């Protein structure tokens, strides 16, 4: 039975870890894209808004 | 296509003849591999004789990687690769030519390694023609797949580490078949088995040479 537990645990843990990594990676990239887009339109919104927009994630 | 192939093969072999890299570097590497295998397997002569077929083919595989690397790097200087493409040489002919050149070099190496294996490991061959045919067929397969992957990785700087990694799993059937054929052809083997594996090698060669002839052009465009 401990083999069964080991088998299930390994598969589930590996899948879970990979899933978490995917979500984290996607979140990080989406934020980078948002920052990039905001930054590029930021300076045009007027000086006060520019840096503020650029700083918001 | 065949004329182009002969042209390219002649060029590659002439380069090899002048630089003698194959002879002075790859061949000694093969011998070193055989010696290292002997160290690894220990002084038991029976064990070495039994393992001789496999060790021979592993050594050949390693030499193939080196030979293919050399075949690719010959063109990486002075924009020679672009020159080849611009020269209007039929890509299929280019593929066959390079494959033939690599195969020729490998055959010579295999001769050397075979002698080494017989002398160093005490291998005893009973059906010599099977050995010869297996080497020829295996060489074609290795050269065909090697040239294919060489072209695929031609423009890459990390080709030295990447090419073996990509090529060897594809070349594994040649190792399997070659070993079995040798085992069948040696003292204590069953020649009938060898025949079946020879047929597998023929199929393998046909498949990959066909793939190479058809796809070499498109592959070249990615380099």
């Amino acid at each position, binding site marked *: 039975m401990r083999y*069964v537990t080991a088998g*299930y645990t390994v598969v*589930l843990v*590996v899948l879970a870890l990979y899933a978490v990594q995917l979500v984290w990676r996607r979140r990080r990239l989406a934020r980078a*894209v948002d920052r990039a887009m905001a930054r590029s339109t930021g300076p045009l919104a007027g000086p006060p808004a520019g840096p503020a927009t650029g700083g918001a994630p | 296509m065949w004329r182009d192939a002969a042209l390219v093969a002649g060029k590659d072999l002439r380069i090899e003849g002048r630089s003698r890299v194959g002879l002075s570097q790859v061949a000694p590497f093969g011998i070193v591999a055989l010696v290292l295998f002997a160290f690894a397997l220990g002084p038991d002569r029976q064990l070495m004789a039994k393992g001789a077929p496999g060790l021979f083919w592993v050594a050949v595989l390693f030499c193939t990687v080196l030979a293919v690397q050399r075949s690719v790097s010959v063109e990486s200087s002075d924009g020679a690769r672009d020159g080849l493409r611009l020269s209007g040489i039929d890509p299929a002919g280019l593929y066959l030519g390079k494959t033939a050149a690599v195969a020729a070099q490998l055959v010579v190496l295999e001769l050397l390694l075979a002698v080494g294996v017989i002398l160093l490991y005490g291998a005893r061959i009973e059906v010599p023609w099977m050995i010869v045919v297996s080497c020829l067929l295996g060489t074609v397969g290795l050269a065909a797949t090697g040239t294919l992957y060489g072209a695929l990785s031609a423009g890459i700087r*990390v080709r030295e580490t990447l090419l073996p990694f990509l090529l060897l799993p*594809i070349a*594994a059937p040649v190792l399997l078949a070659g070993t079995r054929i040798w085992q069948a052809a040696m003292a204590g083997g069953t020649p009938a088995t060898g025949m079946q594996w020879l047929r597998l090698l023929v199929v393998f060669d046909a498949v990959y040479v066909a*793939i190479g002839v058809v796809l070499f052009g498109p592959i070249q465009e990615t380099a």
Partner: protein
Amino acid sequence: MTDDSTTATATATAAGAADDPSTAIAGTIGSGLVAHPPTAVAPNTGVTVSPVQSPRSRMIERAIGALALVGTVATVWLGIWVTPPDKTQGDLVRLVYIHPGVAWVALYLAFGLAAVSSLLYLWPRTRSLFWDRLAAASVEVGVVFNVCTLVSGSIWGKPTWGVWWAWDARLTSTAVLLVLFLGYLALRRVPAEPEVRARRSAFVALFAAVDIPIIHFSVNWWNTLHQGATVLNANLSPQIHGSMAWTLLLGFVALTLVFVWMLLVRYRIGVLEDWLGANELDLALAERHSEGSGRLDGPVADRPGAA
């Protein structure tokens, strides 16, 4: 929920942004201070698609993820506690609810999808980087499932056959497939233009697709011809009926859904990475401009409120 709000704002800014082609760097420098957010767009091959995910696609992704999670939990619960042990294998049979599932995903679903996608990419009429990104996502997720297959198979094998590993055709082919997948991923890491990288990867995937059946066949032969070799039946074929059959089916479905969800997220990651990569230079330039308001003097930290 922060993710949704950022998606919303991004949608707003992207509405005007996504359609603007500004490919030349010179054009970007001039337009960096004008209302041209940098989006490098190449014609029809879809080098960069919009990095913003539509809310509907996000919803579908979430739904699949939820189903996958529920399905997996259900499978585990049924597999370990509800279903009965087998007559011959005892409790070990419980591994049949996950091992064949991950194996099917890794060997057939992921690999098959990668091969087909690669073919579709290479075929001129269907050429689009969508297929390339799909193939790459499929391979990466496939590697994870492949490792799960090998490990779960090995764990099942030890108490059943007494060995952690056997060189039978199935296990060997799975291992070789793993190596081929890893080769594919290694090749993709080499810096190159998206189209070049896509072609290279596609060829490698196709060659792998040709190689795997050959390997499988060879190893099978290799084993059966060798006298005295024990041909280990990886099937084991326990008697499956009743609740076991349903759980087995559930396992397959759940793991397939897990694969699909992972594929979707990984694909999205590919889109984002490609967009960021394509616009790297433009973004860096825009950032420079926004930092100093066009002036390149003075360190950023000195100015209050600087980005």
